[in-house]
């Protein structure tokens, strides 16, 4: 199993480690609920170095990424980022990514750990076949990635860097330093709280982690693992690749039509997705809540009138709602908000209702001085 540059620290913090996409990662340090609570009320520190970081540079970087991704790269200013998808020619999703524009023709793609090799190969193949003047470098090993998430994340990070961070709006990023360590800080995350992600040279990851923990303790910062991360993202209705998104599901089915820009010109998957928009998808992803006690889990079957109408892609117990919540694909006739169906929880049929995402709504900031801004409705997973 691969380990991140912070592996020794996780062991020292007595994390429970688990295999995730070929990586030995902390699932929890003290407990999933305590870490969840830290992120919702204070701040949590995540090692997300297992994710892939791919640099795309060169004079044709924009047309290349317009061809590769579904969203419109032209709308991304320098030091802004964009949530986007990479599709196959059939419109199936190869990955959901975060695209950072670092210069006119310089981009960093943050891809899922499980898809890193596949995407690197795909980018190289597409570049060769269509002869784009771009260079593709897999920087995953050279860079580490941390996420600081929670209402206190700004205060925590402000200890580290001289630059004023409060003006950094959602999806924006800055290049700065901390103790002479170069940092790329973006206001992005996968939790629904105000939060930041930090990219740094791998050899400095431990130093940055230590500094954050030491200086952030006043704000109640604590390490958080993949267990809390999954719960936090699910309460927001954010996708997890491999669950909601696969090569066999399309953005139209997943309800991610807003990530697909049909007007920008040709891109991989465009024809297939156009057709699906015209004819309508045969299934749709919906958020749902259980109306009785129980916890839906990935793979459970959904019924209406004794007919199978779909399947759960993700489910858990929501600490915010105090009930079972889930995401699942259903036939379009059951996809409207308010529609009722049943989840087969180990041969018990538990009634469920389609709701709107997110399941969790952030509380208004406590003081009138803190701006009531949204950190955006889509994640970097």
């Amino acid at each position, binding site marked *: 199993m691969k380990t991140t540059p912070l592996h020794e620290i996780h062991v020292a913090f007595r994390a429970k480690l688990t295999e995730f996409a070929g990586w030995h990662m902390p*699932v*929890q340090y003290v*407990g*999933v*609920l*305590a870490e*969840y609570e830290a992120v919702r009320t204070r701040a949590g520190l995540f090692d997300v170095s297992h994710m892939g970081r791919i640099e795309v540079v060169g004079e044709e970087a924009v047309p290349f990424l317009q061809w590769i991704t579904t969203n419109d790269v032209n709308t991304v200013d320098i030091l802004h980022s964009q949530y986007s998808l990479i599709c196959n020619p059939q419109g199936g999703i190869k990955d959901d990514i975060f695209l950072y524009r670092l210069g006119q023709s310089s981009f960093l793609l943050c891809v899922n750990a499980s898809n890193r090799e596949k995407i690197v190969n795909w980018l190289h193949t597409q570049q060769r076949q269509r002869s784009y003047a771009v260079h593709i470098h897999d920087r995953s090993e050279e860079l580490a990635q941390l996420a600081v998430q929670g209402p206190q994340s700004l205060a925590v990070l402000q200890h580290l860097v001289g630059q004023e961070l409060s003006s950094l709006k959602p999806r924006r990023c800055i290049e700065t330093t901390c103790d002479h360590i170069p940092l790329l800080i973006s206001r992005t995350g996968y939790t629904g709280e105000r939060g930041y992600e930090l990219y740094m040279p791998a050899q400095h990851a431990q130093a940055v982690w230590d500094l954050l923990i030491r200086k952030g303790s006043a704000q109640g910062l604590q390490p958080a693992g993949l*267990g809390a991360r999954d*719960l936090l993202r699910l309460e927001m209705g954010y996708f997890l690749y491999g669950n909601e998104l696969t090569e066999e599901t399309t953005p139209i089915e997943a309800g991610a039509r807003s990530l697909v820009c049909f007007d920008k010109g040709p891109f991989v998957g465009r024809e297939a997705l156009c057709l699906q928009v015209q004819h309508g998808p045969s299934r749709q992803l919906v958020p749902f809540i259980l109306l009785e*006690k*129980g*916890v839906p*889990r990935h793979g459970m079957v959904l019924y209406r009138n004794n007919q199978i109408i779909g399947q759960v892609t993700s489910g*858990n*117990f929501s*600490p915010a709602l105090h009930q*079972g919540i889930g995401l699942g694909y259903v036939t379009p006739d059951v996809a409207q908000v308010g529609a009722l169906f049943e989840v087969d929880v*180990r041969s018990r049929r538990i009634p469920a209702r389609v709701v709107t995402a997110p399941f969790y709504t952030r509380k208004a900031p406590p003081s009138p001085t803190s701006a009531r801004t949204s950190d955006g409705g889509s994640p970097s997973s």
Partner: protein
Amino acid sequence: MIPQDLRYHKEHEWIRVEGQQATLGISDFAQDALGDVVYIDLPKVEAAVTANQEIGEIESTKATSSLYTPVSGTVVKVNTELQDHPELLNTDPYGRGWIAVIELADPKEVEALMTASEYEQFLASQS
């Protein structure tokens, strides 16, 4: 960490025998492996149960796990406090986190269960 006066099952349940009744719970090892418990599906009072039978389910933030009874008999009491406070399974697995009381059908079954020292060895062999 492992109470001496209890008997243990290979699925990590414990029982405390008092007369003809056995109180049942899950071990500290089990609660630690499960992670934060968010919901428990308790057995029904008056249900007749057989040793090694699944009698309930425990949902944690990580997964769903089955609850087994180490002994046969009739469920005479369940810990309804767990419905509102499932976290007691994590914080006090041998005390307030008890799950059910079973009227023993065959007290000899208890002898087949592990003692504390046997359970300790069993845990060591598992890791």
